[in-house]
């Protein structure tokens, strides 16, 4: 590859534009390895949560079974899982060199993510009113740290994808920008997978 050409004409658009350049390949591998590290990070958080679940100083504190309700968790799960699906659509259109549709599906992904975030904030406020806070007990600390770290990842993901939409609006799709979109989509999927574990370990195990 003598001179790098980012703007590939549409008839030569590669099947996998995200890994068509050396930088794209590096980004792809590097980001998977970063996600491996993130997995270890969340594993530590889950372990801490399980160790401190229902660990409260006195009987007047609410426990997991008193707090969690599956309907809300189900709606949140639907928001986030659907947003993962829409990000797949965005990547699908990116591979087909369809810039407008890619932007559209990325936008829908952001909206669904915002919906999830709003519900999570609502949930946290509710719990705080019930006396379940970050400082009320070790259970509270572990709960908010696990959920909060996930929520923080959601915020980062939303900012990231939004910036990509704005930033790419003018320059369009190239093998350079395709790699960026693909990396953000990978991250978004990872956040989703973590949520599946949160749903199982925190909510499902909590109400049982």
């Amino acid at each position, binding site marked *: 590859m003598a001179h790098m050409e980012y703007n590939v004409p549409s008839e030569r658009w590669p099947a996998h534009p995200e890994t068509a350049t050396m930088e794209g*390949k590096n980004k792809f591998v*590097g980001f998977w*390895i970063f996600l491996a590290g993130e997995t270890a*990070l969340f594993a*530590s958080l889950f372990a801490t949560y399980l160790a401190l679940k229902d660990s409260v*100083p006195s009987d007047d504190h609410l426990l997991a079974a008193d707090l969690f309700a599956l309907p809300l968790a189900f709606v949140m799960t639907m928001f986030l899982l659907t947003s993962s699906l829409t990000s797949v659509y965005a990547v699908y259109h990116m591979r087909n060199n369809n810039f407008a549709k890619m932007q559209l599906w990325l936008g829908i992904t952001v909206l669904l993510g915002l919906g999830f975030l709003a519900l999570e904030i609502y949930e946290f406020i509710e719990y705080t009113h019930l006396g379940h806070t970050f400082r*009320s007990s070790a259970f509270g600390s572990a709960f908010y740290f696990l959920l909060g770290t996930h929520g923080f990842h959601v915020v980062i993901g939303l900012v990231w994808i939004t910036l990509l939409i704005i930033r790419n609006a003018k320059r369009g799709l190239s093998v350079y920008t395709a790699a960026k979109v693909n990396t953000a989509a990978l991250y978004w999927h990872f956040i989703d997978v973590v949520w599946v574990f949160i749903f199982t370990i925190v909510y499902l195990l909590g109400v049982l």
Partner: protein
Amino acid sequence: MASTAKKQGVGSVLWDYLTTVDHKKIAILYLIAGGFFFVLGGIEAMLIRIQLAVPNNDFLSAGLFNEVITMHGTTMIFLAAMPLLFAFMNATVPLQIGARDVAFPFLNALGVWLFIFGGIFLNLSWFLGGAPDAGWTSYASLSIASAGHGIDFYALGLQITGAGTLISGINFVTTIINMRAPGMTYMRMPLMTWTTLVASVLIVFAFPPLTIGIFLLMFDRMFGSSFFLVETGGNTIIWEHLFWIFGHPEVYILILPAFGIFSEIFSTFSRKRLFGYSAMVFATVLIGFFGFMVWAHHMFTVGLGPTANAIFAVATMAIAVPTGIKIFNWVATVWGGSIEFTTPMLYALAFIPSFTMGGVTGVMQAAAPADYQYHDSYFIVAHFHYVIVGGVVFGLLAGLHYYWPLMFGNMLSEKLGKITFVLFVIGFHTTFLIQHFLGLWGMPRRVFTYLDGQGYNTANIVSSIGALLMAIAVIILVINIIMTLAKNQRVGRDPWGDGRTLEWSLPLPVPYYNFAQTPLVRGLDAYWIEKKANNGKMMPAESLEDFHMPNNSFIPFVLSFGLFVAAFGALYFASGKEWAIDAVADLPQHPWALWVLILGLAITFGSMITRSLKDDLGYYVTKEEVLRDLEEEEQRREN
């Protein structure tokens, strides 16, 4: 930028290093900063040995002694050993696999600056109200109640350096997977590259648990959570688990690259192919894998129960098998070789018995019931210094002499090097061999003094004399370095004469683009093969063309500096807040702290946004420039 480039001014050299993304210059940054912290940690070690030289000594107060041992351990592990290993990884790995740079040059620079600023932050605690004093393991039951900001400096400083380490780990894994030259298959990679790969994978999985552990500690001390506060349902054992899930792999993160350096040295100076190459690779991977299965052997006396203790005891003993494979393979490499006793080779030969002794005491402690006897005694101190000094530090000193010409284009004095070697090895065994017995006689570790008449006097003074010998050895090494740099006698390609791997096939100093043409690798010990088959000229894998290189950037420095500023804000923000732990809540309030925190984060996020919005497309090195460099090199060779 050819080697004959005109002499640069001090300012432009400084700016070059502050903005560099070149792995060879980043290696030098790691070497300078790591070397500085190594000397600092060494001074702390000397203070410890002076205090313990005689009974009832009052050279250091008890509190200060706690701070000194904490900072000695923390500095040596995080700020000296790891960065120095990163120096050699950066200096060699891209060259060994035939790459022009690492996969993410920008992140490489970010990693080194995060480490440097984190290290400075941690050490500023000495001047700002006292250093951390809960030991390098900082067990929560101790550190939660520690007065003042010492522990907060530990937590925030390690968080910053840890981020840098994680970034570097990801970078090396990606580099080794993606950037290998044509023909450089996995099973043709030099052992240094293999051990870097496995150590980097360990970093990726081991550092996040530490990050979480430190977050829990920070939140408990500064933001009113109760992860470790038993009265509100917390549990301090969580810290021990998280710390050792990081801490045990950390030991292998340190020793594996040292194994890599030794493997290269044994093979080079025995003039033989490394014996049992594939077994060595297999053993490296296996050690990395087992490294995650054994953390609770640090916690045998916690009371996890006989089942847990038994499982972790067996897993720990199992690590001796792949390590034994390595020891025997090194011996077999040397066996029958045409041996040359250079300074690096001397360290490598001294490493085998020294490290094996550390390994044997390790297996002794792996027997959980016996460990109840050794636990928290000087026996443990002796054990881990035998593996860390006898393994890692010998490896670093060997690597320093071996790779010095590659990094600086001149040779360290062999004469002074051998004097350093003799003093250091004698000093090392004098210091630590006797500590095994001190431990068995009952001297606990981490005590600041001992009484007369307990039978510890002679052993302690012997140990302190040994430490003095090591200090003299390091001073001679520093003199050696200064003299070598001052004389600056240039050496050319393959200065040791027996280089086997790709990095020695390059002219010295190595051009900033490393390889004029990406080399074709035809087997293990790629350069050695071409020496035998092709008169020492590497075959190119591509025609001579323009190629792409990344631009220098000042952003990594600014971004890291922002976090450094923000850490001060976060630290003082908690002072005097009623929700913080008593030890922090009693401190005076600092209303400016919040603004410092915001300023620091603004600098960091501003740097990130700048990096993100300004596309860095790099530049092209032209064919003409490379041809000119090649001609100059040819002329120098003829002269």
